[in-house]
């Protein structure tokens, strides 16, 4: 006697209880707390804030704890929470030239006004496992120069003065917002940049790498990479003046790319731009390269058919929450569709066998 499976509700409940238990792990080991994650796994926190599109280190740390360290799952938690938040206004554009830089490097000039600041980077570490860390993590104090420079001029501005760099023109349009409007193509540059800023780091990294290897090569120099705090300022209409509502850490990358020119226009360097929440350097550089690759049309370059040039391809596939959802949904039941396929393939095989035996009969006669 067959009884159809019941009790999905109970199974789900039990599975969730098991998940909670697995998250906690061995209870003889001290539980990790949110502040520890925020302080000691800060680059994970930064990635979750960047791709979750919400600047809140405590919430991102909590999401990482809840997701057992699965960062895409944590990003998903942040995104789902973010959409429920009311919007009471828009800040002014942040001024990254007024950034309090923790890190600032240029690959195009040996020395720059304001200086090169390495900051807390892995760049020149030797990748040797530090076994001391397994035992103790004694906090060392780093010696830092006081770096209270009011304004850090942008490297691109120096090139700009000579007219060597393409000018960026603010056409005054209100940037589109893909979290409020459906993505429609063709997407202008500001919309593309918004999409890239929340895109999956791994996807952008691979695309950017593909441009370096020749799929729409645009020969990028890191004109400047800076990481630091910027003020967030809001204009409050009732008050009639701007108010500083806090500061956020961002990573900005401007690339200087191969020049274009024509008979009428002298050659100029072109730009790629990356701006990401938090200390997220790999992502910001990747973003700048992909941004530059997608600008081929406006700069009069050839369509090489490279993946990174194809804005529709990039924008439709860069969101890891969309991608992971659709990818993983194939584990949901599909037995109705599969049944329909079963019927069809049986029928096709039957037809083919009938045809085959008819042909054989015909030969025998």
């Amino acid at each position, binding site marked *: *006697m*067959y009884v*159809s*499976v*019941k*009790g*999905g*509700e109970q*199974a*789900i409940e039990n599975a969730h209880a098991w998940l909670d238990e697995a998250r906690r792990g061995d209870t003889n080991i001290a539980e990790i707390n949110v502040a520890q994650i925020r302080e000691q796994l800060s680059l994970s926190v930064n990635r979750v804030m960047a791709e979750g599109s919400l600047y809140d280190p405590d919430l991102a740390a909590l999401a990482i704890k809840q997701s057992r360290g699965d960062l895409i799952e944590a990003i*998903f938690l942040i*995104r*789902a929470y*973010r*959409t*429920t938040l*009311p919007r009471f206004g828009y800040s002014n554009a942040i001024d990254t030239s007024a950034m309090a830089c923790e890190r600032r490097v240029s690959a195009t000039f040996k020395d720059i006004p304001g200086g090169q600041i390495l900051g807390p980077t892995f760049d020149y570490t030797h990748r040797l496992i530090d076994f001391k860390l397994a035992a103790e993590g004694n906090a060392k104090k780093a010696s830092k120069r006081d770096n209270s420079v009011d304004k850090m001029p942008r490297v691109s501005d120096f090139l700009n003065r000579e007219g060597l760099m393409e000018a960026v023109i603010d056409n005054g349009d209100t940037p589109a917002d893909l*979290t*409020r*409007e*459906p*993505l*429609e*193509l*063709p997407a202008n540059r500001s919309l593309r940049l918004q999409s890239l800023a929340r895109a999956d780091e791994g996807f952008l990294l691979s695309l950017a790498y593909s441009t370096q290897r020749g799929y729409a090569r645009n020969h990028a120099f890191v004109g400047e990479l800076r990481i630091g705090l910027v003020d967030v300022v809001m204009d409050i209409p009732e008050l009639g003046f701007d108010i500083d509502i806090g500061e956020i850490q961002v990573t900005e990358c401007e690339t200087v790319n191969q020049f274009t020119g024509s008979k009428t226009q002298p050659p100029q360097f072109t730009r790629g731009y990356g701006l990401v929440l938090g200390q997220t350097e790999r992502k910001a550089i990747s973003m700048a390269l992909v941004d530059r690759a997608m600008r081929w049309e406006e700069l009069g370059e050839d369509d090489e058919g490279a993946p990174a040039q194809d804005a*529709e391809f990039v924008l*439709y596939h860069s969101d890891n*929450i*969309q991608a*992971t*959802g*659709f*990818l*993983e*949904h*194939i584990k*949901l*039941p*599909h*037995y*109705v*569709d599969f*049944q*329909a*396929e*079963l*019927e*069809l393939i049986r*029928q*096709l095989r039957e*037809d083919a066998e009938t045809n085959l035996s008819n042909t054989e009969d015909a030969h025998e006669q």
Partner: protein
Amino acid sequence: MNNEAYNFAYLDEQTKRMIRRALLKAVAIPGYQVPFASREMPMPYGWGTGGVQVSAAILTPDDRLKVIDQGADDTTNAVSIRSFFKRTAGVQTTTATSEATVIQTRHRIPEVPLTEKQTLVYQVPIPEPLRFLEPRESETRKMHSLEEYGLMHVKLYEDIARHGHIATSYAYPVSVEERYIMDPSPIPKFDNPKLSQNAALQLFGAGREQRIYALPPYTKVVSLDFDDHPFEASKANHVCALCGAEHSYLDEVIVDDEGNRMFVCSDTDYCESRRAQGLTGKSAA
């Protein structure tokens, strides 16, 4: 989750208004895919976020909701979505098709005919019927606006040339009121005839792809075919082993290690109500 922290049926009123506008446009242009600013929902894309957003936008406190997945009320995802609305909207829920005012579905249309008082909400993974012929949205939108559907007919013709049949068994494309070609979501083609002249309002939501479309009540929907290869709503050539139904869509169930199978109704409510009326199949206790 703190229920107080969320609005009725989870979405805020502004978002609901945006979705309702898209729904109105969709009803006004049957079969046309209306872009809408789909929100991130607390369940993953691919799990029915489009259907959930449509349901959230149309539910009222007086509604009675039924959720099915693969025709069944008790599949895990149906259970999960039903409990989501129970929690966030506090609406009554039911498994009885005839008692529901809103039915959210994945991959099936209930066997019992629906009424004018009911709304059927479909979860749609890929709303674009031309997608697997042309991957670019910018192209397929153009093809729809120019009614440029030759590619689809060529595909169906090639199926016949190769296999002797149209080799599409689910998500079988339809033509709506002789204008738009529409993807009916991955329902088996057995269900396609129920799309046409249905008394209920049928709404389709694709969350990840940000599209909404609709079939108003009594819309003419035709499954694509050729005169010499007419459309056929096929199903397994068996009767339900539990309730003896001859004309319902059947799931094939493997019952033992020998690979023996039985066939049972995919629509669990239909099967259970038939058995409650005393109808039985050969395997019923």
